[in-house]
Structure formats: C-alpha cells, structure tokens
C-alpha cells in the first residue's frame, strides 16, 4: 500500500493540470460565443462556462467522471448504454485475440530460434505485415470473413491477434536468444535435445523479455479489438461507443469510453504484471 500516496499525488497533479488545460482549451469557444452575442466575459464566468460546456474541446475531469459513473453505475449492466456491457464485449474479444496472438507469436519465435530457414525468411515478412495499416484492411478482413460465414467475436479476435503477435514475437526471439554461451554449453555437454534446451534454458531465461512483451501485446490486442469494432458494424463494444460518440460530437461520451478502454488496458497490464511477479518469485528471479 506504499503506492497509494504516490499514485494519488500524481493523479492530483494531473487533475490540476487538466483543469487548467480545460479552461485554456475551452475558452476559445466561450469567447467566440460571447463575441457573437456581443458580451464580455469575466474570469469567473469563463471558468464556470469552460467546465460545463456540452461539447468541450477538453471536458473537465468531473464531467468525464460523471460520464463514466453514469456509464458504469447509472445503468443496468445489460443495458446498451452501460460501459460495463460494452467493456465486456471488448474484453472477451481482446482476450481471445491476445491468446491467439500470444500463441502465434511464441510459436513463430520458437520456430525462428530453432530453424534457420524460418529465421532468415519469416522475420522480414512478419515486420512487413505489421506495417500494413490495420484500419485499412480490417474492413476487408471483416468482409471476407463474413462471406465465409465467420462473424461475431472471431473476426475481431483475429485483428486483435494480428496486432498483438508482433511485439510478442520480437520480444520472445530476443528472450529465447538471451542465454549466454556457458549456459548453452552446459546443455550441450548433456546432449540435450532442442526441446529440452527450450524448456529448461531458453524459456526460463526469456522470462523478463516474455513478460515485457506480454504487457505490450495485451495492450495491442485491446487496440486491435477496438479498431476491429469500427468496421464490424460499429454496434457493440467500446470501439463502437467511441465511434458513435465521436460521430455525434459527444465529447464527454468519447472520453468516458476512452477512459473505460484505458482502464481496461491498465487492468490487463497490471494483471500480467502481477502474474510476472508471482512467476519470477517462484523462479527465484525476483529482486
């Protein structure tokens, strides 16, 4: 619980800066409106107005908090207006995609580390695959999969997996190659097979890299899901919430959805971090 005070301090600092920024960014509109009405604005009017605009450039923290609160607690969780409901939709696709992506990333990394032909040929194309702007091909993927009869969670999960496998691949290749010469030599003297070397040496010593890349990968999976939620018909999920909020200029709804998404990502990253702690401690590698 040592971390409560630091987090609160940082949060307090952010909130203060945020309020300042809200006044600054939203004031233009206030002044414009006053000018149109031919009025003057006093400072106190400015402050109150900038914090209560309906479509602020930057909503004030309490406005977002209110939006979040209404989205989370103000609705039945089965309601279409509930952020919990949409978060759940996004979460399930994210997890499915993350698992797919992690498995793919790890398998490819294992292949690359153990097979020279794969090492030489796959990596450049894995890199190239990541430079394809996902938002551009997501609709095509969805269309093609839909015409194959695949709908619902899976297309989203595939796009999430596409984004999350890469950081995991890169991290794992590095991690699986991290053992030093002497550690490898030891196993050579036992004539250990490739799979034994993998399980007993490469995998354990890749753990720090493994968890660092899982954290990036799970965050990427969430982004992928949200991206995929746009062309999936923009119906359900935090992505759809973001989009429709954006489409109707409901800034506060956007920010509430944004925060819900970020909170979800943060929770996922924290969970991975907690697993990391436990695993590393079990392995005697925690400091």
């Amino acid at each position, binding site marked *: 619980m040592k971390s409560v005070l630091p987090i609160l301090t940082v949060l307090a600092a952010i909130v203060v800066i945020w309020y300042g920024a809200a006044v600054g960014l939203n004031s233009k509109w206030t002044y414009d409106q006053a000018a149109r009405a031919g009025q003057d604005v006093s400072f106190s009017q400015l402050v109150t107005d900038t914090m209560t605009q309906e479509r602020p450039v930057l909503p004030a923290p309490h406005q977002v908090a209110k939006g979040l609160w209404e989205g989370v607690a103000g609705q039945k969780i089965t309601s279409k207006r509930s952020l919990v409901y949409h978060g759940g939709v996004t979460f399930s696709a994210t997890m499915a995609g993350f698992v797919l992506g992690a498995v793919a990333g790890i398998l490819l990394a294992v292949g690359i580390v153990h097979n020279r032909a794969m090492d030489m040929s796959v990596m450049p194309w894995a890199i190239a695959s990541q430079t394809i702007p996902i938002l551009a091909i997501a609709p095509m993927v969805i269309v093609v999969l839909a015409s194959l009869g695949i709908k619902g969670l899976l297309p989203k999960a595939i796009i999430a997996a596409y984004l999350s496998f890469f950081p995991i691949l890169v991290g794992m290749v590095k991690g699986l190659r991290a053992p030093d010469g002497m*550690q490898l*030599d*030891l196993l050579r003297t*036992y*004539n250990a097979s490739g799979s034994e070397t993998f399980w*007993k040496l490469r995998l*354990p010593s890749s753990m720090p890299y493994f968890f660092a890349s899982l954290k990036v990968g799970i965050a990427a999976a969430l982004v992928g899901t949200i991206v995929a939620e746009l062309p999936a018909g923009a119906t359900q999920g935090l992505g759809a919430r973001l989009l429709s909020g954006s489409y109707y200029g409901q800034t506060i709804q956007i920010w509430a959805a944004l925060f819900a998404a970020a909170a979800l990502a943060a929770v996922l990253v924290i969970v991975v971090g907690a697993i990391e702690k436990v695993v590393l401690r079990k392995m*005697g*590698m925690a400091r």
Partner: protein
Amino acid sequence: MPVIEAKDLNLTFQTNDGPVHALKDVNLAIEKGEFVSFIGPSGCGKTTFLRCIAALETPTGGSLTVNGMSPDDARKARSYGYVFQAAGLYPWRTIAGNIKLPLEIMGYSRAEMDQRVEKVLDLVDLGGFGKKFPWQLSGGMQQRASIARALAFDAEILLMDEPFGALDEIVRDKLNEELLKLWKRTEKTIGFVTHSIPEAVYLSTKIVVMSPRPGRITDVIDSTLPRDERPLEIRDSAEFLAIAHRVREGLRAGHAYDE
C-alpha cells in the same frame, strides 16, 4: 585404443584485433582409466583444449577423437560430464534443481533423481542447501554445487576445469580424496585442469604441462606414484617432490618473467 587422442590439433580464434592462436600442434593420447591433469599459466589454452574434447569448440586444424568417434558424436553419446571453470548454475533453479537438470534430461526416474541429488550434495558437503537459490550461496558453495551436478550422473569421461579453485585446503584435500575414490571405483577417465602443482601430482597418472602464446604442450609427465594407494601423506615423499619439481620447472619455463 586411447580414449582421447589429439593429433596436431590447432585452434585459432578470430577477434576484433587479430587472430589468437589458442592451441598449436597439440598431440596427446589419453588411455582409458587415466587421470590426466592439465597445468599451465593462465591463458595457455587449457580450457580451450577441454572444450575441444567436449565438442564445444571446433578445432581449426588437426584431428581429435574421443572414444574413437568425433568429439561431437561422443557428446551425443553422453560420454562425459563437464565441470565448467565458472559455476554456471541456472539462477531460476534451486541447488537441487540445478543438480537434477542433467538427470531430467537423461531421463532418470523421480525417485532415482532425489536419491542421487541427496548423495552428491552430501559428497560436496552441501547437505541441507538443496532448496536454496544459487545467489544465496557463497562462491565456493556454488562451485561445489556445480561439481555435484557433474557427478550426479554416470559418464565414462569426466572433464573438470579448475573445479577446486575456490575451495580451501581442507575441503580441497577432502574432495581430492573423494575424487580419487570415485575414480578408482568407477574407472572413469578424468581430464582435470588445476593450478595447484601438489594437487596435480597427487591426483594424476599423467600430468600435461602447457605454455601460452601460442598454447602448446611443453611436457607430459607420467606419474610414478602408485596408482591404487595414495594417502595424503604421500605428498611428503621424495618421489612426489621430484615430480612436483619437474612440473614447477615446466611451468616456470612457460612464463615470461624468467625470460
């Protein structure tokens, strides 16, 4: 047929500032059941030679056979156990886990494993430390754990690179005796790197003296000490001292200081 036979063995490392001639024209034959010590100044190629035998390094010239096979085939046949110069314990495994590592790979049963771990831990006087992690042990304890790891399984050949370097005289004497007992009981062939002249003379049937830049063999001494009975007191015998003297002279010749 010798167990290990090197003919005109050469090894050159390519480094950022030019080649290093680590082994030059090394010729050596080691018969089954011999206990061969390698002694020589630091950097003369002892480790490199042991690594060649273990197929961890590929010679750039000459020929080398182990058990009549190429070193790599011998490695694949799990012909040897190797104790590295540095302990090289895996930090994520406990001491017992580290010792189990080769046993797991070689497919020993769980019960057999536990029993062997117990035995070798006692042998190196680490009983009760099985559950600790490597970084919780002192330097010498780590080294002993790595010796235990190599002794836990039965290999015909035992290659040991300065196994007792970080141990005090008393433990060293004790482990020397244990090693001799083990050698006699199992008739292993042992290749042993050491810096201690008395240790080399006490243990070996053959002492190989090496010299650096380029690394080469300058003397091979066949011990005249009795093979079966070597009490610690033998170290005060004239015969012992004569051999030790010859080794010392060979060693000294390899050093630049005297030139």
